[in-house]
């Protein structure tokens, strides 16, 4: 289970050689713009741009597709019902007793394409620098210490909580528990979730104590030194300008009937 959260070893690519601060800033702008797009054709262009970055970053294909596939299933839960739910006076098709609206299909596609683009940018960021480097870059970009540490600790303790869950599942299985869809199963799942929460809370207490014992006072400190080269600025400008162009295109298309 924890393998799903494992990061690939950073790849050697033009993107992994960039200053993480500029890369993070560029991808954050691109992601923010992508999230606000309202036109399908522009979202497809943003997605193509994100996939181009993924190719430049030389993402491990299997690792990328596995994560994309898992995320797509989640997005499908929201996107698939939309053609039936967003009915309007516009064009629609009938499938037996069901009516499918063109507007609904467009919104579902827009949602799916934007989700793929955003996930691709996120995975590109993950694969081109270790997590702690990205978090330190975020801190260097004036993201508050609290959020940086939350990110670091959340990632760290996913593995510990996943281990706890694994132990709980084994404990259930050796006492004859089998998965099913009845009241006993639901109640057991609730108890397991509650136990995990309590254990997580207790562990958080102990981690906090351990941090204070080593002089922690809420400040995020790091020895990491970043240095900017002209190519870092150039890539940032290119990505930011492309994002701005997409935004203008999106707003123009939206205003044009």
């Amino acid at each position: 289970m924890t393998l799903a959260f494992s990061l690939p070893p950073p790849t050697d690519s033009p993107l992994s050689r960039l200053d993480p601060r500029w890369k993070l800033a560029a991808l954050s702008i691109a992601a923010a713009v992508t999230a606000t797009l309202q036109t399908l054709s522009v979202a497809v262009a943003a997605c193509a741009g994100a996939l181009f970055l993924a190719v430049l970053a030389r993402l491990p294909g299997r690792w990328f597709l596995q994560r994309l596939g898992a995320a797509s299933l989640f997005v499908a839960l929201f996107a698939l019902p939309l053609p039936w739910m967003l009915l309007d006076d516009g064009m629609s098709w009938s499938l037996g007793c069901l009516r499918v609206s063109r507007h609904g299909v467009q919104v579902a596609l827009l949602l799916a394409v934007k989700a793929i683009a955003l996930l691709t940018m996120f995975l590109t960021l993950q694969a081109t620098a270790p997590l702690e480097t990205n978090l330190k870059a975020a801190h260097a970009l004036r993201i508050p210490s609290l959020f940086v540490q939350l990110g670091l600790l959340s990632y760290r303790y996913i593995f510990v909580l996943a281990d706890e869950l694994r132990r709980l599942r084994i404990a259930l299985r050796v006492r004859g528990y089998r998965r099913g869809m009845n009241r006993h199963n639901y109640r057991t799942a609730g108890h397991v979730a509650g136990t995990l929460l309590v254990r997580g809370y207790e562990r958080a207490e102990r981690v906090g104590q351990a941090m204070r014992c080593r002089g922690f006072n809420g400040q995020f400190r790091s020895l990491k030194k970043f240095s900017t080269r002209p190519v870092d600025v150039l890539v940032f400008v290119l990505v930011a300008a492309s994002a701005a162009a997409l935004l203008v295109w999106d707003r123009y298309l939206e205003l044009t009937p």
Partner: protein
Amino acid sequence: MSFEIAIQARDLTFAYPGGAPALSGVSFDVAAGESVGLVGPNGAGKTSLFLCLSGVLQARGGALSVGGLDPRDPSQRRHLPSQVGIVFQNSDDQLFNATVFDDVAFGPLNLELPPHEVRQRVDEALARVGLTGMEERVPFHLSGGEKRRVALAGVLAMRPSILLLDEPSMYLDPRGRRELIRLLHSLGGTRMIASHDLELILQTCQRVLLLDGGRSIADGPAQTVLADATLMEAHGLEVPYRLRGAAR
């Protein structure tokens, strides 16, 4: 003959909110450079005592001085991490950074040391625990013994004069335990070791403090206290194997 006192506790009392007293009138002295074992059954108050000594928990009554500082005084408590190092029972509670280097550097960075000194201390601490070359490893992918050593390196990098080790041999296999004992022998300074592993206590501590129900029951040479079969049995412990012949 006079000794410099590293830890002085007088009538120390502590209770968790809504609970029975975890520590009740505990008094003891630890001389600088002394190695003291802290033994007792589960719930005896060993971990609570360590947390009070390190300033995490605030003892309610009595007097306490650790390395010349009062852990209950907020202004003095800020200086405790450079004086007192504590290695927790479960290393997973103590290793929270993404690499071994970052984890060991966490304490020295909090002491606001210059970067070159932080690097020097990290290298030195990792060398002392035999983990040189593992700086870029991810702590949560290490074995139990390696995690324990990284946790210890994180504390050693702060160069504390007093070291508190809570169940240091827990989760260690026999080889890891042997390495730990060797490592403990090589460390100087004042040490308190809380453990159910009485063989380890016998091998690493000259003196033993027995706690039960938050009270100090016995305080004396390890060979004498641990060999007292009646005392050990009365407090849920057993005479270590190598003292069985000498047990009364």
